Structure formats: C-alpha cells, structure tokens
C-alpha cells in the first residue's frame, strides 16, 4: 500500500514522541494549523456545493446525519454488550466515534489526490453535518435529557465550538464567494494546504505518542475497541456510500468519516455535558489508537475494499 508523503510527517512525530524527543509545537501553532485546516475544508465544501442540485444535496445531508447516529449507536451497543465500561463512558466514546475527525478526512483527501482519484468535492459539507448529531445522541444516551449545565449552555458548547464554527463559516464563505472570489486567498488556504497538513500531522504524531502512555493503562479492551470500531464505521460508511451512489473516491471519504473519531468537538462537549465520563478513555482511544490506525493502515485498506465492491473502480 503506497502512502502519501504527508504520512511520513505523522510517522516522524510519532517516532520522535516515542523516543522521548523534546520536540513540541507550541499550543499557538497547533491552534493556527487547525484553524487553517478547518477553514480550508469548509471553503472547499462550500465552493463545491454550488454545482450540486439542492434536492440531491439535502437528501444526502440527511442520509449522512443518519449515518453519524448509526455509527454512534453501533459503538454504544458494542461497548454496552462488552459490559466493561460504565454507561456514561460508553455513551461518551460513542459520541466520539459517531462524530468525525477533520484531520483524518484531510489525509484521505490527500491520499486520493496522491492516487489521482477523483471524488465528489462537496463531501466536505458532510463533515459538518456528521460532527454534531452523534454528540447530541451521546449526551442523551448518558444522561437522558438532562446534560450537566443544562441544554442552553450545552447548545452553545456544541454549535459554537471551534470546529463547527470554522467548518460551517468556511462553507458559507465558499458558497457566497465561489472559486473566483476565493482565488486571492488560495495561496495560503489551498496551495499551502498540504504543507500545513504535514505540519499538523507532525504535531498529531507527537500528541499520539504522548497519549500512548495512558493508553496502556486502560488495557487491552479499549485498544481492541479502538481498532475494531473504525472498521465497523468504515463499513457503515461504505454501505451509505453505495446507497447514495457515490464514486469510489467519494466512497473512500465517507468510509473514512465513518471510521474516524472526533478529537475536537466531541471531547469539549462531553466534558461539559457528561463530566462523569472519563475523558482519558475516549481521547486515548480516538487519538492514540484510531487516528494512527486510520492514517497509516485504514485509509489504504478501505480503498482496497471499495475497489472490490465498486464496479467502476480500477484495481
């Protein structure tokens, strides 16, 4: 399986972290990189949406929201059946896996472009829609209709969080300005995108390595879940992609979204709404295991599977 070179940056970060290098990017740099990625992905989605019939778009967005709920419920069921974690932890982890990781999505896009495979670029719009529903579901699963702090302050937390605001804001900017209007900002937001992603992955590698220490403490069950769940999520994504008639490239993106677990919006929201859930469990699973797995193994693997099932995908 050939890897896009940006993955090498992730491996570098991971190796440096595991070998206890003191290399770190300052928090402000991480913040800048993630703001740039979120805005760029949002704008790409927005620019692509103008070409899509409204009806098709709407129905696909609804489908995708359902997909987030299905993935989250699958995770919850799996964890409950295993009877290893309290309900609140199971619900919190379910929220993470029903939601999505924008960084993983960006790697999948880079992978497709590296292979020269085309995809429906309006799928970036799905990212926003996938982010929120599973989080709300996780809260309800944990606490019924009584989140800590109450719904109003929680709604602010969920809908006004960094990732939703930047993805949605970027999308609106993309829709309004269109490709021609955004030409001026292309050098920073689009041409430099892959370099920014590389730097971001370097930092994610360092972070993942840091999280691996606690990961071992949480035992083999969590590890197994964090390796199996992305496969389930990818299959759910593949099923929805088939039903929605996406191209193989688009299917890979939807698989990746299904397989990926949130590490921005979900942790923030669950910390506020379900404080009794241990944030260490969900973050370790999503950051230290699932993120590296998807980035290094999952994405090429999902594409193999898609090639087997899609009639028009080259092998």
């Amino acid at each position, binding site marked *: 399986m050939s890897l896009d070179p940006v993955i090498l940056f992730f491996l570098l970060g991971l190796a440096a972290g595991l070998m206890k290098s003191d290399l770190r990017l300052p*928090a402000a740099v*991480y913040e800048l990189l993630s703001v740039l990625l979120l805005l760029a992905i949002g704008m790409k989605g927005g620019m692509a949406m103008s070409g899509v019939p409204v009806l098709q778009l709407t129905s696909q967005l609804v489908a995708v929201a359902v997909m987030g709920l299905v993935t989250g419920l699958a995770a919850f069921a799996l964890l409950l059946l295993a009877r290893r974690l309290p309900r609140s932890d199971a619900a919190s982890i379910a929220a993470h896996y029903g939601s999505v990781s924008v960084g993983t999505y960006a790697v999948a896009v880079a992978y497709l472009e590296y292979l020269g495979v085309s995809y429906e670029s309006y799928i970036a719009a799905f990212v926003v829609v996938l982010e929120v529903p599973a989080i709300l579901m996780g809260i309800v699963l944990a606490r019924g209709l009584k989140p800590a702090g109450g719904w109003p302050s929680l709604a602010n937390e969920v809908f006004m969080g960094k990732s939703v605001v930047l993805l949605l804001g970027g999308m609106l900017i993309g829709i309004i300005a269109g490709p021609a209007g955004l030409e001026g900002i292309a050098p920073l937001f689009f041409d430099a995108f892959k370099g920014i992603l590389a730097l971001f992955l370097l930092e994610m590698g360092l972070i993942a390595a840091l999280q691996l220490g606690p990961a071992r403490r949480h035992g083999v069950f969590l590890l197994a879940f964090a390796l199996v769940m992305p496969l389930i999520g990818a299959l759910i994504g593949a099923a929805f992609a088939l039903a929605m008639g996406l191209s193989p490239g688009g299917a890979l993106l939807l698989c990746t979204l299904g397989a990926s677990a949130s590490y921005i919006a979900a942790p923030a929201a669950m910390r506020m709404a379900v404080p009794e859930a241990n944030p260490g469990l969900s973050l370790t699973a999503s950051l230290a295991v699932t993120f590296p797995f998807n980035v290094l193994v999952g994405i090429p693997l999902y594409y193999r599977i898609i090639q087997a099932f899609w009639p028009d995908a080259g092998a």
Partner: protein
Amino acid sequence: MQRTLLTIITEASLERRLIADIKTHGAHGYTITEAQGEGSRGVRQPGFEKAGNIRIEIVCEASVATQIALWLKEHYYRDYAMILFSHEVEVLRPDKF
C-alpha cells in the same frame, strides 16, 4: 489589611463556568494564568485543544473564599482535575476585594 488569596488549579475547559461561579459567590475580580501540571488525574499539558490547566487567583474576604471552595468541592471535585489552596495576604485597598 488582610484578605484571603484563593488559588484554584483546574482544567482549562472550565474557565467560563468558574468565572461565572466565583462572581455569583461575591468575588470582585480574578486573575488567570495558563499552567500545566500533574496530579491524581495524570499529566495535563497544553498544546492541544485546552488539554492544559488554568490557575485562577481570587483575592477576597475569608467568607467568600470559604463559600467558593465549598461550591467547587461539591460541583467539580468528583469529575474534574482540580485542586485549591488559600492563605492570608496583605492588601492595600481592602475595600476593593
């Protein structure tokens, strides 16, 4: 004149809520610095999505400090990384606090 300096070290994500809480209990001000640390809930380092700590200082009357401490103990101690400590300090304009 003496006042109490109450210091809270806790998760950065609680910032907004705690500011509201301490105002409700009668504090007239606060100061926040960013921090990292380690305690019973493991290492907390900034560098990623509010993974770090904040350190909140409140100069106030002893009774206010006690009230805030009790409130925090009841509402946050179980679920959040948090410690707090306090001591007396000399201030110039006691009416301010």
